[in-house]
């Protein structure tokens, strides 16, 4: 695992806050994610995970504080080329085939010609969907759509992957296979930031950040967090740090 305070963190958040209509969704978040890390943002729904993801990607702008991605201050249009993104909902065009979806997004990232064909086949092979390449997305199952979304995120070989709830609504077997792919990507040097509210997934991350009510309550490796709170599972650690159960 990399030292999170290494000279060039991939993501650097410094005291960021975001409010919607007077209600604070994120409050003073400071965090660094190092190169090659698999970082998990853990928190119940409504805790601000997705808002944080949107600030990191530059889809949204923080009211206060500084967001830096790969050293550049966000939001910045050219930086949108530098990461792969998988949204919480499967943002796919159901009328089109998987290949047409991939071609569309590939073109948006500036891929064309033979290179695009190559990347489509390679990304679909990673998520094991190659034989369903020419099926319309409307005929895909929920799990297949999730994997196709991941393939789109991988398409332009980004050095950073930002995944919002990549395994939500997916059966355990498929979840295992997606996690195998994520860990393999990490081993090949890709930095990954993902959100989850599944506690056992947090155990597989290099480090996790616990979010509750828009505040980052703790950051550390799963083992570290368990040791600090004297608990046996991440779930217990989360409850201990958060100061009581709340769903």
């Amino acid at each position: 695992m990399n030292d999170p305070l290494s000279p060039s963190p991939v993501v650097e958040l410094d005291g960021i806050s975001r409010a919607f209509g007077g209600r604070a969704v994120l409050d003073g978040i400071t965090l660094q994610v190092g190169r090659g890390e698999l970082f998990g943002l853990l928190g119940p729904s409504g805790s601000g995970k997705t808002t944080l993801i949107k600030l990191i990607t530059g889809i949204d702008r923080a009211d206060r504080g500084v967001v830096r991605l790969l050293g550049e201050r966000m939001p910045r249009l050219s930086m949108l080329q530098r990461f792969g993104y998988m949204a919480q909902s499967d943002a796919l065009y159901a009328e089109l085939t998987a290949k047409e979806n991939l071609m569309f997004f590939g073109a948006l990232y500036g891929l064309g010609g033979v290179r695009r064909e190559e990347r489509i086949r390679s990304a679909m092979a990673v998520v094991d969907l190659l034989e369903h390449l020419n099926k319309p997305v409307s005929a895909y199952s929920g799990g297949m759509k999730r994997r196709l979304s991941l393939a789109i995120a991988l398409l332009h070989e980004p050095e950073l992957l930002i995944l919002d709830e990549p395994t939500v609504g997916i059966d355990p077997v498929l979840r295992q296979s997606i996690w195998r792919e994520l860990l393999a990507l990490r081993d090949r040097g890709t930095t990954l930031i993902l959100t989850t509210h599944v506690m056992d997934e947090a155990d597989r991350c290099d480090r996790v950040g616990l979010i509750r009510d828009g505040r980052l309550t703790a950051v550390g490796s799963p083992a570290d967090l368990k040791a600090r709170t004297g608990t046996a599972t991440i779930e217990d650690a989360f409850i201990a740090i958060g100061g009581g159960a709340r769903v």
Partner: protein
Amino acid sequence: MRIRALTIRIIRQFVRDKRTLALLFLAPLLVLTLMYFVFNGREIKPDLGIAGVPPAMEERIAQSGARVVRYDDADQANRALEGGDLDATLTLDNGRPALRLEGSDPSMSKAVLLLLRQAMQQDAPGVQLQISYLYGKADLTSFDSFGPVLIGFFSFFFVFLLAGVAFLRERTTGTLERLLATPIRRSEVVAGYLTGFGLFTLFQAALIAGYAIGVLGMYMDGSVWLVLLLNLLLTLTALTLGTLLSSFAGSEFQIIQFIPLVIVPQVFFSGLFNLEAMNPWLQKLSYLMPLYYGADAMRAVMIRGEGLSAIQLDVYVLLAFSVAFALLNVLALKKQRPI
């Protein structure tokens, strides 16, 4: 029990959706008000140019409700008619009264004919009136007259709905957010939509115009290419307006709510109804309506057979509407992504 629960839920939903509520109650009032002004205004006063007509007859015509303008000779009067200043001219041709009608609005032609027949019955019964038309012909039907407006209206209406709903779905299904997580510029999103839909609207414009002229036999005196150009410009305006307004709608239903607010008023001001009976300051509202310019130009081309120079202003205004709506759309996308 279940019905009661359902009823309460629906009432709650309605009360929370203030816009739907406002539409339900205020939109009918708006439409009714417009209809009131259109149908219940002052009576139509035709502008009649006369030359060489006996003073007694002139006076009787003026008394029966026309605005009479006297010219020195018939040529001068007819030039004013061609210039659009008059609705008809009455001159003496070899001692016989000759009526020349502007002709592009059948209801105005009928009003002039009725008025003159009444005036002449008392003055010179038995004298046959010679009637000719500047544009169109005697059997120009209301459909021929409304046709160009209807062509423009239907292109406008359906493209507006289609573009609005399509852009909205892009947002509600999450694909817009996904799209904006790629390095695409906001202006590229708008331009992409314009081009993609523009191709379909071009096809639609050709289809509607072709059907109306070829199949329905609508009166057509001008260039087909100008009709297509105007239709395309109108649909581009509808396209940009539809996508712009969809930014302010949360569901397909809310897109539909824009119809009585955006589409219906345009119908009243588009020339389907004669606005001369309307309050003059209300008539000025038509300058804000894209459909007014489109319909005006379509009529000029289809009924009066006029060329590009006559409809230049309409073309520029429609282009300006499209550009303005498209730019506002790029701005409105800031709501989705600040850069």
